[in-house]
């Protein structure tokens, strides 16, 4: 998995590319988010558009990141969920936990709301 972090109006937008699966991206996701949090970032938007595969381990890390950011007073939201990842989050009822956006502009604005 590849990560790229952009700063957009005070929001750390993390573009993910590739797989978030056990042994290949799951721990990397956690470490990337922890780095942002340790660097003082409180508003984090994960762009999932180019994530090709996710498994239960990747979902677990996503949930762990959400909890970790929230517990430190921040917000973690998701952008551009591919349909199959949307399905995986839906069946485990996690889709109601995350704020999910289809527009980056709308997502970034939502942090100020």
């Amino acid at each position: 998995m590849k990560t790229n972090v952009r700063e957009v109006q005070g929001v750390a937008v993390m573009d993910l590319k590739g797989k978030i699966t056990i042994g290949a991206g799951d721990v990397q996701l956690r470490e990337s988010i922890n780095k942002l949090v340790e660097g003082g970032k409180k508003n984090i938007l994960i762009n999932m558009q180019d994530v090709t595969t996710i498994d239960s381990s990747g979902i677990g890390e996503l949930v762990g990141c959400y909890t970790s950011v929230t517990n430190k007073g921040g917000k973690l939201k998701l952008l551009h969920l591919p349909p199959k990842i949307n399905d995986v989050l839906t069946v485990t009822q996690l889709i109601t936990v995350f704020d999910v956006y289809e527009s980056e502009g709308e997502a970034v604005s939502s942090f100020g709301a």
Partner: protein
Amino acid sequence: MTLSSRFENIEMAQHLCGKLLEGREVDDETRHWILMALREGLANAIKHGNLQNAGKRVEVEMEVTADTLRIQIRDEGTGFEPGDVADPLAPENRLKTSGRGIFYMKTFMDDVRFRRTESGGMEITLTKNLGGLKKEGSKR
């Protein structure tokens, strides 16, 4: 097929399963969810069964008949009680970082069975009915 307990081997098994399904009346959606269930079964065997001990093996058998896919995964661990696995949909478990693999297998396959092997490890049998899936446009 026999695999060492490395996560890298999951994709090889998925590739072989995909090959087995070629030429069958299986739509892309169904194929995707079958391969995800296989991934979860193998990850479970490698991580929780064999505790990522590369010296321990995971046995995988896949069989496709006219209307059924059956996958058996056996590990060399100490086994578990399927009834003791927490419900990931329960509010108190919703934000846990693990415990969804078996749920996904059950969601994406038509039948999932667990059995302790003679050596004490776990055998998971995943079954998917393939008959008429394409015509019915089944999602998963």
